[in-house]
């Protein structure tokens, strides 16, 4: 439809024209001898009044403008109904592609674009510290609470700073007002520990009651108060109006509920909705297993609001200075060269926090980029496919179009009509795609992004994104429908109206060489080229996954069961904690089917590849050596035997390696080779930075086993858990089983419950399951790439079949002549086939070049396979070639069976 302003301009134009008309008529009558006044009145009277004319013309114009698109729509709908097969193929293939795009956009939107429901989100920033130590993105955002207080008191540029930590806690209970009814919450509850300033800084108001103030966490010993989220209040407390009379019980402390946060606010961490907030002063009570006094070990994120008029850069400079001072203080008056260099290489950054906190953005961002790219390719291929089909159909419809043009329809009108048809197809596809994506997003909304992390400070594994379609998604959907319609509809529409009128009407079948389908052929080439790209991607990601799955993990996959638990959450510390661990392991060893049981505090295949730069390690007799990262783990005796990673030299830890014994350590091969080369490692000593200074004596060397990701080798050092009694707060029990590991999982759970009912058991799984979890992103990419590969192959099949079949039907005449003149049927089939296979060949060549050029973009997501992997490319080409042969072969064979006489007569 034309823009509205045209109406008023046309109205003015018409006014001028009519005024001119009356003026001329008046002038004529004056010349005829009438007085000017009478002349004008007569002219007006004869015209029948100007207003009725204007009115009638406006009405006609309006009706025309509404009726025309409606007529186009009705016509388009009729066309779709007339060839339901064509419409179905078009709509379904586009719907799959559009649905994929909407799904991936929904995830991107929820993770990256959606703004926090807080006051003036644009002036919020979050702190991030980039130091040379490799660590999971999450840990770059955590600061010691004392460090937070330094920023709060010493830096300028902020109108407020808040500290926040999020922890999943087992064993929370809800106490009704009379305190007689106490309902335990069977699930882990997400507790957020926040400074009293948190709600004020974010500008979040209470829905009921009040939010925290600074008083709540400045009172000595803390104030046992809690705020619950609107969702938790509705879910667990049935939205009771007297919520302020309720209390929460956690680790023996009773927290009075003082408020319910405003509906829609569930913390600033995207994808980790918070259930309960408590003041920072309660940190030690919420995490009794946390070592150290008071708040010193509270690893908190810092969210701050910029003072009005202060830029992010100014505030950053001020905070950076505070950080430098704080680090220099930590390293003492005479820092070593390494320490100074460490300070110099550490940067404090303030990042915009308007879209909330999400470390998943960094780990999941590249995956989303790959998936978006794949979805875009899929859409491009579907568009090329539909354009091909439309072009072949437009060729078949040229008689109809020519007829419409000849009876006076303007080309613009026919063009609009053809585009409307595309738009109808695209909108049908968009609606179907939207429904499809709603199903898929429901399925992926709690998608697990990685393995369980034992460290209570680390990110819990599953991402619960709110994927309900919002304004962005709706706009995106409409946009993509329009875009799609234009992309696949414009070429056929242009071609449709460009046809030479007379020849089209005269020869309805006529001479039709390969040139007739010119642009359809181009689209076949484009489609094949992009399909090669998608198939090669599927192959590369599939092989990456297979390579990662079949890596030597250094552990026995078939006979090991992993039990993820947290003895620290029972409230025990020090020697009591070690004693509990020992009792647990002793009792598990007696369960039938268990060969041996041991434990580490780190776990196997956690995906966490953090470590200390090797130059920070102190190895007597050796200068600091850079180039590796070292991780540490506390383990129980028998660990290496249990996981199936044999000791290569020296001895394992025993029950005699206790608190009172000399400090000992076991290192892995990588550690031994890196620091000592070929020299004997047993008996060597090393010390860790910041340690008490007592060096550890190496008593054994173990085979490398993967604790983080399957593909990352770290230099490991292991310590006896009783010499590091604080470390077994979180415990990954490893059990060597006689039979299939999963068979005794139930018995293990029961036994643990008998030993200590308060011991939370998060998960019991096998090495293979853990591997699947740590490879979640790779699996997702491979699965989607495979699905996309299958889809584009099917589309290529449809597109090619359509073109060849049409070409055969158009050339029946010519084929008839050839056959009459003595051409062998097989030669005719070969001729038809050759033409289509040439297109496929060109497409493949372009596709392979494209793949070679673009696979470099994903090279760091590949493992054990080069982006220019010949077998993968060959497989993609062979698969497409075979499909093309089948799709083109069918109609080509039909061509060879044409009866010459019928063919010649059919004009």
């Amino acid at each position, binding site marked *: 439809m034309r823009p509205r302003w045209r109406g008023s301009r046309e109205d003015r*134009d*018409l006014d*001028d*024209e*009519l005024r*001119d*008309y009356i*003026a*001329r*008529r008046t002038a004529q009558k004056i010349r005829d001898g009438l007085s000017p006044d009478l002349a004008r009145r007569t002219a007006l009277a*004869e*015209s*029948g009044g*100007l207003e*009725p*004319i204007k009115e*009638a*013309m406006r009405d*006609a*114009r309006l009706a*025309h403008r509404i009726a025309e698109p409606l007529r186009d729509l009705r016509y388009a709908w009729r066309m779709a109904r007339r060839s339901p097969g064509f419409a179905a193929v078009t709509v379904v293939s586009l719907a799959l592609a559009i649905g994929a795009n909407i799904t991936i956009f929904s995830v991107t939107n929820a993770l990256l674009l959606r703004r926090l429901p807080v006051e003036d989100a644009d002036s919020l920033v979050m702190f991030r510290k980039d130091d040379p130590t490799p660590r999971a993105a999450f840990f770059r955002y955590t600061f010691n609470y004392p460090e937070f207080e330094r920023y709060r008191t010493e830096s300028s540029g902020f109108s407020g700073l808040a500290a926040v930590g999020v922890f999943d806690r087992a064993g929370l209970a809800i106490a009704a007002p009379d305190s007689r009814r106490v309902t335990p919450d069977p699930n882990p509850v997400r507790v957020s520990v926040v400074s009293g300033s948190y709600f004020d800084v974010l500008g979040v108001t209470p829905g009921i009651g009040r939010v925290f103030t600074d008083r709540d966490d400045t009172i000595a010993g803390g104030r046992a108060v809690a705020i619950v989220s609107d969702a938790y209040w509705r879910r667990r407390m049935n939205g009771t109006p007297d919520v302020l009379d309720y209390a929460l019980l956690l680790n023996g402390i009773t927290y009075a509920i003082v408020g319910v946060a405003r509906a829609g606010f569930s913390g600033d961490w995207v994808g980790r909705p918070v259930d309960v907030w408590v003041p920072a002063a309660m940190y030690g009570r919420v995490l009794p297993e946390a070592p150290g006094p008071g708040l010193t070990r509270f690893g908190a994120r810092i969210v701050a609001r910029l003072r009005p008029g202060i830029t992010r850069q100014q505030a950053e400079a001020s905070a950076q200075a505070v950080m430098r001072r704080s680090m220099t203080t930590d390293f003492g008056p005479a820092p070593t060269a390494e320490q100074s260099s460490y300070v110099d290489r550490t940067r404090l950054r303030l990042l915009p926090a308007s879209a909330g906190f999400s470390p998943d953005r960094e780990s999941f961002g590249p995956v989303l980029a790959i998936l978006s790219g794949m979805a875009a390719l899929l859409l491009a291929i579907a568009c090329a496919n539909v354009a091909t089909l439309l072009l072949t159909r437009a060729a078949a419809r040229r008689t109809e179009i020519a007829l*419409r043009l000849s*009876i*006076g*329809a*303007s080309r*613009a009108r026919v063009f609009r009509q053809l585009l409307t048809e595309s738009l109808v197809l695209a909108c049908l596809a968009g609606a179907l795609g939207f429904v499809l994506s709603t199903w898929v997003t429901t399925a992926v909304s709690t998608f697990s992004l990685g393995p369980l992390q034992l460290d209570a400070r680390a990110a819990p594994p599953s991402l619960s994104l709110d994927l309900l379609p919002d304004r962005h998604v709706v706009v995106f959907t409409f946009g993509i429908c329009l875009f799609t319609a234009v992309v696949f509809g414009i070429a056929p529409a242009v071609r449709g109206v460009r046809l030479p009128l007379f020849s089209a009407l005269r020869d309805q079948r006529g001479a039709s060489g390969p040139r007739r389908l010119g642009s359809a052929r181009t689209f076949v080439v484009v489609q094949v080229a992009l399909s090669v790209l998608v198939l090669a991607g599927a192959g590369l990601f599939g092989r990456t996954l297979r390579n990662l799955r079949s890596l030597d993990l250094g552990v026995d996959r078939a006979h090991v069961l992993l039990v993820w638990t947290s003895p620290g959450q029972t409230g025990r510390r020090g020697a009591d904690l070690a004693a509990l661990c020992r009792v647990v392991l002793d009792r598990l060893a007696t369960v039938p089917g268990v060969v041996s049981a041991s434990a580490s505090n780190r776990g196997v295949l956690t995906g966490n590849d953090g470590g200390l730069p090797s130059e920070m390690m102190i190895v007597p007799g050796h200068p600091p050596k850079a180039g590796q990262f070292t991780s540490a783990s506390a383990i129980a005796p028998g660990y290496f035997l249990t996981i199936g990673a044999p000791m290569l030299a020296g001895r394992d830890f025993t029950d005699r390696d206790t608190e009172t014994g000399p400090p000992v350590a076991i290192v892995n091969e990588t550690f031994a080779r890196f620091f000592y080369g070929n020299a004997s490692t047993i008996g060597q000593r090393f010390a860790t930075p910041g340690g008490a200074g007592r060096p550890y004596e190496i008593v054994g060397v173990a085979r490398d086993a993967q604790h983080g990701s399957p593909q990352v080798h770290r230099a490991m050092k292991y310590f006896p858990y009783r010499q590091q009694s604080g470390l077994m707060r979180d415990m990954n029990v490893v059990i060597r089983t006689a039979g299939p590991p999963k068979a005794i999982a139930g018995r293990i759970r029961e036994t643990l419950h008998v030993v200590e009912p308060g011991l939370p058991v998060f998960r019991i799984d096998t090495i293979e399951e853990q591997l699947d979890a740590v490879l979640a992103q790779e699996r997702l990419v491979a699965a989607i790439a495979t699905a996309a590969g299958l889809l584009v192959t099917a589309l290529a099949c449809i597109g090619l079949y359509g073109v060849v079949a049409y070409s055969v039907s158009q050339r029946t005449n010519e084929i008839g002549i050839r056959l009459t003149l003595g051409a062998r049927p097989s030669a005719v089939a070969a001729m038809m086939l050759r033409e289509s296979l040439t297109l496929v060949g060109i497409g493949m060549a372009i596709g392979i070049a494209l793949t070679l050029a673009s696979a470099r973009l994903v090279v760091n997501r590949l493992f054990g396979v080069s982006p220019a992997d010949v077998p993968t490319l060959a497989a993609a080409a062979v698969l497409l070639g075979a499909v093309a042969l089948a799709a083109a072969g069918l109609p080509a064979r039909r061509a060879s069976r044409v009866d010459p006489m019928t063919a010649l007569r059919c004009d």
Partner: protein
Amino acid sequence: VKQDKSAATLLKGTVDLLILRTLELEPRHGVGIADRVYETTAGAFAIGPGSLFPALHRMEDRGLIRGDWRETDEGRRAKFYVLTAAGRRHLDREKQAWARTVVAMQQVLG
């Protein structure tokens, strides 16, 4: 686009045809067209502004004619209509159709 053969359409078509034919000779403004048709048909067809302007604007929309504001001899501005190439083709077709209609009608009516 369906060709409606009712009497009203025929009449509307007639006005269009008369206008196009008038413009085939030279560009004219609204009054010029009406006066010219009136003179050449010896007063048989007096096209009032109520049917003249809708017809002009409809044909301008369809791309058969184009309107331009120009200065006239006496120095006034007026909207002149010019036949486009599409209009010329349309007129040719319509003339032939009209001729066939006339022959057919005469054969029936004697």
